[in-house]
């Protein structure tokens, strides 16, 4: 499974979209209605099915790592 980020339309029912994403195979890890975003994981071959869920604006791969240097580094 790959990490995935989903943006939900303002006009859509957020709860319904989250349910639809789960039905489409997404394992929802964080549902964030304040920013209309859903974070989770999905089998790579099912990415396309997430895009077909009504109310979904954008689907993109997540999991990009963020890293700040070791505390002893001069440049942070």
């Amino acid at each position, binding site marked *: 499974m790959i990490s995935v980020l989903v943006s939900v339309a303002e006009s859509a029912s957020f709860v319904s979209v989250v349910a639809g994403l789960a039905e489409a195979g997404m394992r929802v890890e964080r549902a964030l209605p*304040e*920013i209309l975003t859903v974070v989770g994981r999905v089998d790579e071959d099912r990415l396309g099915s997430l895009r077909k869920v009504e109310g979904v604006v954008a689907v993109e791969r997540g999991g990009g790592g963020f890293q700040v240097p070791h505390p002893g580094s001069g440049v*942070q």
Partner: protein
Amino acid sequence: MSTPENSPQDDTTGRYLVLLADDSVAAGTRELHRVAGIRATSTAEAAGSAYPGAHGADGLVFDRLGVAVVDADADQAEALARAVDEPGPIAALEQERRVYAISATIEADDAAAPPADETTYTWGLQAVGAPLSKATGAGIRVAVLDTGFDAEHPDFAGRTVTTSSFVQGEDAADGHGHGTHCIGTATGPREPATRPGYGLAYQAEIFAGKVLSNEGSGNDGGILAGIAWAVSNNCHVVSMSLGATVRAGTPYSTVYESVAARALAQGTLIVAAAGNDSKRQNGVIAPVGHPANCPSILAVGAIDVATAVGWFSCGTVDKIGAVDVVAPGVDVYSSWPRPKLYNKISGTSMATPHVAGIAALISQATGARGWELWARLAQSARRLSLVSTDVGAGLVLAP
């Protein structure tokens, strides 16, 4: 309107620019002669000459611009100034300035600038004019999404601090130091027990969201959860000294862009570090990283005490991400988790909380939020003699 001085100053030529009202160029040319005895010729007649005096005239009228450049003595300048204040085709008058080619390098005097005196305030606070500002950040909520916070730091005793961790298995305590340093710059004290003062919005409410682990690492889920937390707490500003390297031309994240745009619409401005991937000493300028490369996230670059761009600071190298503003980001002194208490480090991570703190001060002073706050930050920035691809609108300034 005040009467202009006729004696040339160092940065003026001794000539004047006269703005003629729209659709009144011919009438304005006649008016120059009527009120001040100035005979001006049009650019069409002067065959492209750029200077008054062409063809024996006292001035040159740029017909298509509606502007005249004229030689005028003190009495003539007085007469023109009076004409501006009266109804008629002469709309404005100002001294003609000398202009210079913009240099991409710092001035020699700046390069030779001695280390800043940080006896009372850090050089960063001095550079952004914070000691002169009456704003304190009171009533403003600033969220810093980072490695957490040492809430028991003595410099923050009595402050209103809300913490939350979005890192699995870790509380909001800062086991790294990066977060406490950033929070110190954005919201730390102006008069700590041990000087120098290092905080900008020193009376702001602090929201310390831990989205990076004690090892300094994080992921999208935690960061987006932190943004959602800040938005739901009605924070005015979110400071994110974090990012991921991108290659030039890589599209920005549609999801982060949607999130940032929605946050702005709800009155929450997100500022983020442009990134430290450049090696300018080798001529390498790296693109603005993710998520600062999103159009609705304010990307922050770093300058040093001599107002030169930090050697590591990312720049605008493609049509995707752009540096929006810069702030002090080299040798920045701020708070650090106990027992060390203080540290001096560099990076666009250090510049970003300077901008967040300034944004809080501006929000308090003006009531601006969201896009309006963004606009006020950019509009009030000090223009620098550096290329805009490195510094955007310039150095942010306290209100």
